[in-house]
């Protein structure tokens, strides 16, 4: 796994904690690694915690949105959790409101939503 994030697999859900100040290559590698793991581990859900990210620029925002689309095609549902308020405000101003990505306030909110759908 790349050094961009720690990934834990619990009950068919991949829990991903992205570390701060990642490079473009780090996050592209993470996208590849996660896509492989969704299939290899038959994951039904992916929860990406971005609480450590001080900023999400247009590049990282695009990769996060793509990750949601990729996992949907691989039959897993993705939640982005832990977004800082300042990051949300900045993303909206950039015109990137991550259409197609589900968000939740925290990891436990996301897990509850996945459980309610029988995915965790």
């Amino acid at each position, binding site marked *: 796994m790349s050094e961009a994030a720690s990934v834990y697999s619990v009950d068919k859900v991949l829990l991903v904690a992205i570390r701060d*100040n*990642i*490079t*473009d*290559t780090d996050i592209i590698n993470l996208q590849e690694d996660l896509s492989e793991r969704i299939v290899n581990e038959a994951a039904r859900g992916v929860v990406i915690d971005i609480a450590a990210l*001080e*900023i*999400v*620029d*247009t*590049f990282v925002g*695009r990769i996060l949105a793509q990750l949601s689309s990729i996992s949907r095609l691989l039959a897993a549902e993705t939640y982005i959790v832990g977004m*800082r*308020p*300042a*990051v949300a*405000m*900045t993303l909206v*101003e*950039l*015109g*990137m409101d991550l259409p197609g990505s589900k968000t939740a306030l925290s990891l436990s909110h996301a897990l509850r939503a996945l459980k309610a759908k029988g995915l965790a």
Partner: protein
Amino acid sequence: MNGAPAQPAARVELRRERDVAAARLAVSRAMDALGARALRKTRFITAVSEIARNALEHGGGGVMEIYNLERPRRIMIRCRDEGPGIADIDQAMVDGFSTARSMGKGLGGARRLVAAFRIESRPGAGTTIEMEADP
């Protein structure tokens, strides 16, 4: 372009991808030193990230200097590259304009996120961008 102090507070070479992360970190520290508010810091560092990536990808690398301005008390960055330059700046500032793998929101987005934005570019003579943020 502007009356910046002669000596930058910090200077980051933009040669490799990791240098974009280094530029973000350097600006983050400079804003912490000024006691900047969280939202202003997030907005400015996001803008810094966009233009540092542009300098690397379109400008073939460059340098970012960080200045502390006195009146008004602000952070200023100057990002220079010696790339091909931008033929039509007005067009490049429009959301959706892209010549590379970006979404084309970077340059116009950066301008919306900062207190002052100046760009100077000529085909063949590189691009210089200055941006300022209040603390």
